[in-house]
C-alpha cells in the first residue's frame, strides 16, 4: 500500500479529532468519580451503578426500546410494500405523486412533521402515549426503508421471479422463497435504520407523546436543563455503544446486499 503523505496524516488526525474529541471527553467523564462534571477525581463506575438504580431513566429506556422496536417493524413492512408498489406497479395513475409523497417526510423539517401529527391526533381525539409515538416514528422512518429497499429492487432481475413461477411456485411462494431472501439484506438494513432513527428522535417524540410515555431523549433533554449530571454521561456512553454496534451491523449487512446485487 502507498504511504500517506504527512499532509494527509495531519488532515485526517485533525478531522477525526474535531469529530470525536467531544465524544471521547464524554466517555472519559462518564468514568469520573467526582460529582462535578468538569473536575476529574479518579476512575470509577459509580455513575453506571446509580443509573441502574434510577427508575425514571430505566422507564424511559424501556419506553424508547418499545417504541423503537414496534415502529421499526411497522416502518419496515410499510416501507417495503411502498418500494414494491413503486418498482412493480408500472405506470399507475398518480405514480409520480405517490413517489414524491413517499420521499417528502425525509426533507420535511421534523418540527413540521411533529406539529402536523400532533394536530391530527388532537383532532381525532387519540389519547397521546406510546401508541401515538409509534405511529409517528413509523410514518417518518418508513420513507427511509422505502429508499433503501427501492435501491435494491431497481437492480433486481425480474426473470428470477418468472423462473420461480415457471418451476411451480405460486406468486406468493415466489416472493417468499426467491425475492425476499435476495432483498433481505436491504430490508434488514432499512429496519436497523428505522430503529436507530426512532431511538434518537427528540423533536417528533416530544410533539406526539403524552405524560405517560417519556422516551429516553426527552428524559435526557429535560434533566439536562436542571444541570448535567454524570449519570447522563454514563447513559450517553451506553447509547453511543449501542448505536455504534447498530451502524456497524447495518453497514456489514448492506455490504452483503450490494455484493448480492452484483452477483445476480
Amino acid at each position, binding site marked *: 500500500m502507498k504511504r500517506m503523505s504527512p499532509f494527509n496524516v495531519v488532515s485526517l488526525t485533525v478531522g477525526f479529532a474535531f469529530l470525536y474529541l467531544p465524544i471521547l471527553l464524554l466517555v472519559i467523564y462518564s468514568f469520573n468519580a467526582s460529582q462535578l462534571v468538569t473536575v476529574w477525581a479518579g476512575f470509577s463506575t459509580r455513575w453506571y451503578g446509580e443509573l441502574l438504580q434510577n427508575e425514571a431513566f430505566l422507564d424511559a429506556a424501556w419506553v424508547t426500546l418499545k417504541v423503537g422496536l414496534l415502529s421499526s417493524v411497522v416502518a419496515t413492512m410499510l416501507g417495503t410494500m411502498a418500494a414494491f408498489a413503486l418498482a412493480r406497479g408500472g405506470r399507475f395513475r398518480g405514480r409520480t405523486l405517490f413517489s414524491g409523497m413517499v420521499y417528502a417526510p425525509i426533507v420535511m423539517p421534523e418540527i413540521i412533521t411533529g406539529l402536523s401529527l400532533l394536530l391530527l391526533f388532537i383532532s381525532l381525539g387519540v389519547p397521546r402515549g406510546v401508541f401515538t409515538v409509534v405511529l409517528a416514528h413509523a410514518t417518518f422512518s418508513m420513507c427511509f426503508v422505502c429508499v433503501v429497499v427501492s435501491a435494491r429492487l431497481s437492480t433486481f432481475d425480474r426473470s428470477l421471479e*418468472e423462473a420461480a*413461477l*415457471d*418451476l*411451480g411456485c*405460486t406468486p406468493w411462494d415466489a416472493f417468499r422463497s426467491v425475492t425476499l*431472501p*435476495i432483498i433481505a439484506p436491504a430490508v434488514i438494513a432499512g429496519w436497523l435504520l428505522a430503529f436507530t432513527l426512532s431511538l434518537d428522535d427528540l423533536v417528533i417524540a416530544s410533539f406526539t407523546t403524552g405524560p405517560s410515555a417519556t422516551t429516553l431523549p426527552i428524559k435526557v433533554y429535560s434533566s439536562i436543563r436542571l444541570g448535567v449530571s454524570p449519570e447522563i454521561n454514563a447513559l450517553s456512553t451506553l447509547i453511543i455503544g449501542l448505536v455504534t454496534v447498530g451502524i456497524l451491523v447495518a453497514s456489514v449487512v448492506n455490504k452483503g446486499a450490494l455484493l*448480492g446485487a452484483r*452477483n445476480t
Partner: protein
Amino acid sequence: MTSPWEDSNATPLIRIDKVTKRFGGVTALDGVTLDIYPGEFFALLGPSGCGKTTLLRLLGGFEEATGGHVHIDGRDMAGVPPNERAVNMMFQSYALFPHLTVAGNIAFGLKRSALTKSAIAARVDEMLRLVQLEDLAKRKPHQLSGGQRQRVALARALAKAPKLLLLDEPLGALDKKLRQQTQFELMNIQAKTNTTFVIVTHDKDEAMTMASRIAVMDNGRILQVDTPERIYQSPKSIAVASFIGDTNILEGICNWSDGESATFDWTSQSRDMTGIPGNALAVGERCRCVVRPEQVVITFDEPTDMPNRVQGIVEDIAYLGNVSTYHVRLNDGSVFTSQSMNRQPLSPDALGVNRSVWLSWPESAARILRP
C-alpha cells in the same frame, strides 16, 4: 419413418392458432399459426425484434395473447398461469437463484412437486450427472463460469421432466468454441430425455445445426416453417433465402413454367435461364431467382452443356482457408458470388484477379420466386 409433420394422423403437442400479441401500439405477433410435434427440436429464427421471445413467453405463460389460441397437449392455455403448465423455460439470462447452491437450484422445482426427499435427491444427482456438474453441487452461481451456469440452468429446467422445454437464446453468452460444443450437448440431452425443445435463436447456423424444423420469422409473422435442408434449398420467399445465407439474386420475367421447372428472361443479361419454381408463377409475371454461391461453378472455358451460364471478370478473391469466395463482375456491372472448396493448394496460375471466366449452375440450384 415419416416425420410427424408429414403425417396427417399425428397430433401436435403445441397448436398455435392465429395468435396475435400487441403491446400498446406495437404488434409483436401478427396472426401466427404453427404446430409443433412431440419430440421435435424446433427453432424460432429471425432478426432482432421479430417476436421470437414474445412467442416463447406466450408458451411459458408469461404473456397473454391479444387474439387467437394456444393449445398445449390438447388443452387451451388461456388463463393458465406458468406454475400450472407442464412447460419449463431456460431463461436467456439463466436466472439462477443467487442465494441457492447448484443443487439447491436444481431441486427448487422438485420441492414444489409431490416427490419425497430421497426421490428429490436422486433426481438432483441424475441431473448433475446429465450436465456433468457432479463436483460443483455445493457451489453458488457466482462461483461458476458462464458455460457452467448455462448447464445448471438447463439441468434446473429439465429436472421436472417437462413435456416441453423452452430455450431463449441459450447459447448467446458463450464463446464460439464452447457454443459449438454445447450445441451437440443440447442435441444429445434432447435425444436422451426425449423432451420437445423449442429454441429461440438469431444465429442461422445454430438453428441449422440443431433443429428438426425451423420457423423463420420476420416482423411478427412466420415466413416459412420447414426442415433445415428445405429452408436452405427451397426457400419460399426472397426474405427467407437471404436471411438464411448468402445468395445471388437474379431479376427477370417468367416466360414458361410447368410447375416442375420454369424459365425466365434474365433482364440484365437478356438471356433465358432455367430453374425450379418455388411458388406458382404465371407466364409474364416478374420474378426473382436465387442461386447459392457454392452451387456456382467457375471455369475458364464456356461450359456449353450448362443451360445457366454467364461470363464475367474476377474482381477479387477472399481466401477463407477451406473455401475461397470469388466476386465476379458481370458485363452489366453487377457482382456475382461463387464459392468453392480449396481441395489442393492454389497454384500461382490458378484463377487470378482480372481473369475472364464463366459462371454456371445447374437447373436444380436455381429457385425462381415471386419478387
